[in-house]
């Protein structure tokens, strides 16, 4: 193998059924086409036939991939990506911050692919080139934080441990007399990193995350459930080999420029995402409130519990950076509450999605008996309790390794069904989930992660919860209250006001109902080319893999960064757009194939349980406004085909054309599947 730069040149293939670890060397032209992370993951998913509907998410053959891009290692703002088939039966591409990805690169790997299922719980120990499948029976049943602590304490590189050799003779007699050598040898360093799951993942909750560093999560589409299904409790890594960089001087200049720019970025550095709810979402009527029944409060004071200075003074403890990032958008926090269940519990911030999905959406923000349209006038103490409830629910989801976007939709759905008396506490094992009751939420989440009683149904996500109750109560009206697109819960960005997120973006984004994919700015002006370009850029970020929060600081530097890292001196910014187009085409083909759809528009694109999109906003500056201007037929029959056309896909089914696949250089792996779909 020729010497590689940026990359390590090898991916580990772990087969848990056979108990083997083999090495794959990804060809350079494949890396150049897909870079890593998300796009490379989809390449393997399609190439290896995992779009086959016969291979369900919990099938032994399903593969979960932890994939790096060239920036993982010393690149700034790097994240890790997991790619697999989701229990919801579509692609699962999910990213997270933290150090584990850099550590894996330093160990000499570009990724780990896991297939098969272990008979008993295991974890993977990666120490440089050596990957060992180890027994995790002692960790099974433990939650993320505890599992991670134990794994990190267990791993050391050969340079960090050794039996004792010091004797009293090495010391002065006086010293040895006072404190003789302890005989423990060497082994105090703690330099590893880990990805783990909690009980939510173990029990295959469909929206279970893979977590790291206590509060960072590969969220959303249930990568943790796939780990749990494979009985893979975690991966702990220690790498000492570093990263080889083609043009170090150029790379360091870009790195230091980005870091210097970040060091002046007050928005992220001061309070992370705390500015969004307070200054934007409520004003834009994009805030999820009580299962999206409202999207803003008449009393603007309500969101004061989430403004930066208040959260900082009430609970922030410490900023936590990802490697080589100077934005440190995450803050650990300690809950301050008069409720002993919550007081003193450690969590993180909350970030914006949590403020929305397990904040406003669960009815935590209003005083008892008040609606979002009433004046609230919360005291400082009441604001503290609001913040505490959000942080506590965030903690529950992080610690059990659950996604709180889907989780927030799921719980709010149950609350609304209860509010409308469509279900009763008898349907919920005696739990009464009134809006704002954090104890009821606590009880429900604990049932979900153990799949106990009604929790076994709720553990399959929002749409399945709605289907379960609709069938049980013989009332199809219940399905109206599941706020999902493509069967997956909507993130904390409303579409009805047209001031925040965009409906076409939720319908077209390559990862079901994703909110960070950059197309909205273009789509909101019906500029399809700009929307497509925005979506494609996001794919390149998920494949490099770097964080979108830092995207502004990278602008115009990305191709230079790739050139400096890899030595591919002909790599251009335009190649990043092509990479995004490849990923979108592969995701589309994968999703349509695995779902076995005959009529993609009807069975997939219009799989849109968003009754609420067309309910007029009840209050706020955009009162009366609805999604798609109230004309879903326009959204699906005009905008969607126009989008497909901009992508070079067929305008009746939205399948990439043969010419497009050839142009993208992926006809070899995708044309046979696409031909069946057309």
């Amino acid at each position, binding site marked *: 193998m020729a010497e590689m730069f940026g990359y390590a040149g090898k991916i580990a293939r772990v087969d848990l059924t056979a108990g083997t670890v083999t090495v794959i060397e990804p060809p350079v032209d494949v890396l150049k086409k897909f870079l890593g992370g998300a796009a490379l993951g989809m390449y393997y998913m399609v190439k290896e036939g995992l779009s086959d509907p016969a291979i369900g998410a919990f099938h032994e053959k399903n593969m979960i991939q932890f994939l790096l891009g060239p920036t993982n290692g010393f690149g700034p703002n790097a994240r890790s990506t997991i790619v697999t088939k989701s229990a919801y039966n579509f692609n699962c591409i999910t990213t997270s911050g933290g150090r584990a990805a850099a550590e894996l690169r330093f160990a000499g790997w570009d990724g780990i692919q896991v297939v098969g299922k272990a008979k008993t719980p295991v974890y993977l120990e990666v120490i440089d080139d050596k990957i060992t499948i180890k027994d995790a029976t002692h960790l099974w049943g433990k939650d993320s934080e505890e599992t991670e602590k134990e794994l990190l304490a267990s791993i050391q590189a050969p340079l960090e441990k*050794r039996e004792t050799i010091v004797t009293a003779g*090495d010391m*002065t007699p006086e010293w040895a007399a006072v404190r003789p050598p302890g005989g423990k040898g060497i082994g105090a360093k703690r330099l590893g990193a880990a990805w783990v799951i909690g009980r939510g993942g173990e029990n295959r909750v469909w929206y279970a995350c893979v977590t790291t560093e206590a509060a960072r999560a590969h969220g959303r589409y249930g990568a943790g459930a796939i780990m749990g299904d494979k009985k893979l409790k975690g991966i702990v890594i220690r790498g000492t080999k570093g990263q080889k*960089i083609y043009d170090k001087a150029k790379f360091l200049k870009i790195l230091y420029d980005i870091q210097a720019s970040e060091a002046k970025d007050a928005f992220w550095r001061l309070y992370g995402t705390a500015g969004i709810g307070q200054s934007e979402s409520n004003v834009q009527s994009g805030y999820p409130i009580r299962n999206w029944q409202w999207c803003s409060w008449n009393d603007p004071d309500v969101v004061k519990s989430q403004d930066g200075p208040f959260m900082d003074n009430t609970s922030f403890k410490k*900023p936590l950076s990802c490697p080589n990032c100077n934005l440190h958008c995450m803050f650990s926090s300690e809950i301050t509450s008069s409720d002993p269940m919550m007081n003193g519990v450690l969590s993180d911030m909350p970030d914006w999605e949590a403020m929305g999905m397990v904040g406003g959406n669960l009815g935590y923000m209003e005083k008892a008996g008040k609606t979002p349209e009433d004046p609230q006038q919360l005291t400082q103490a009441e604001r503290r309790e609001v913040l505490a409830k959000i942080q506590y629910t965030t903690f529950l989801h992080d610690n059990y390794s659950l996604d709180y976007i889907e989780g927030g939709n799921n719980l709010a759905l149950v609350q609304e069904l209860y509010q409308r008396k469509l279900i009763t506490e008898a349907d919920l094992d005696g739990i009464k989930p009134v809006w704002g009751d954090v104890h009821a939420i606590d009880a429900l989440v604990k049932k979900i992660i153990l799949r106990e009683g009604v929790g076994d149904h709720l553990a399959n996500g929002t749409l399945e919860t709605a289907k379960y109750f609709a069938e049980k109560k013989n009332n199809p009206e219940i399905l109206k209250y599941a706020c999902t697109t493509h069967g997956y819960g909507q993130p904390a960005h409303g579409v009805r006001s047209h001031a925040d997120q965009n409906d076409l973006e939720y319908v077209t984004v390559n990862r079901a109902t994703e909110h960070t994919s950059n197309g909205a*700015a273009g789509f909101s002006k019906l500029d399809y080319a*700009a929307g497509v370009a925005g979506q494609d850029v996001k794919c390149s970020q998920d494949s490099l893999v770097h964080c979108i929060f830092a995207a502004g600081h990278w602008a115009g530097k990305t191709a230079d960064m790739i050139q400096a890292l890899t030595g591919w001196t002909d790599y251009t910014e335009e190649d990043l757009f092509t990479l995004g187009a490849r990923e979108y085409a592969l995701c589309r083909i994968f999703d349509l194939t695995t779902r076995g759809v005959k009529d993609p528009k009807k069975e997939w694109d219009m799989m849109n349980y968003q009754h609420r999109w067309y309910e007029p906003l009840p209050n706020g500056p955009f009162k009366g406004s609805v999604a798609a201007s109230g004309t879903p037929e326009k959204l699906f029959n005009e905008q969607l085909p126009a989008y497909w056309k901009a992508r070079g896909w067929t305008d009746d089914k939205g399948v990439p054309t043969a010419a497009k696949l050839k142009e993208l250089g992926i006809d070899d792996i995708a044309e046979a599947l696409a031909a069946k779909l057309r």
Partner: protein
Amino acid sequence: MSQLHERLSELQEKLRLGQITRRDFLRYATLLGVSVGAAEALAACAPKPGPTAVPPTKVPPTKVPPTAVAPSEPAPTAPPPVAEKQALPGHTLLVDPTKCTGCLNCAVACSEKWLAEYFPNEAKHLMSLEFSRIRPMRFQLVDVVNVCYDCRLYQWAEGSSKAPCEQVCPQAALTVVPVGEGKPGFTGNGYLNVDRDLCTGLDLCGRCLEICEDQFGSGISFDPIEKKAQICSRCGGLPACVEACPEPLALQFYPLMTNGRMFAQTPADLAESLYNKIYDKFGRV
């Protein structure tokens, strides 16, 4: 770039006609991969709409992604004259772990400096934190910065005033390099240094780290190439890590009025006590 250029021209035209705002122009242009500075220059190139032009309709600001807008660069001004930094004796590295974010900038600066010094061939392409003398370690929700604390034994009680690692080294490879000696910017000024010709490395020895971990901290590491001891020399009084740290007061070069062993802690012990301090807890981390 032709495709890119076309889109940009279109955008410029739209900006000129007032169909998009300047903010939108910057957002689109940066999404297209143009740097913020260049985008601002391009925005400035679009002629202002004439007084007869219809003012653009005000659209509510969108917030996706809140991230894509970088802070604009301040106008370039002449840098203020920088006083030449003096190498300082008698100082130590003082970490405030509540301000440290664990970004690793210090370790990158340190490893780059020492890798280039001792392994210039490898340093052409390799970057590796294993050559760093300072290592931030992340425990659960706390960051511990692990580095040599510059401990000394007490002559009156322990029969020596050397550093403990220096005392147990069978090769006398660890020495304090006096003021006026050593390599400026690397060693000297009364700080410890490892003579790599004398050090026999971890395979044969490693007593320095063992005694450090046994009774003090874990302030020594071994490079992965020759496996020889690495101890922070405070860069001879001009530490690169302090220069690299982006967080005000998180890492300072501070006058040391006492024996450094007053700070000495193993990483896990320090993490546990820090966790207790920061979160008022008494659990293991």
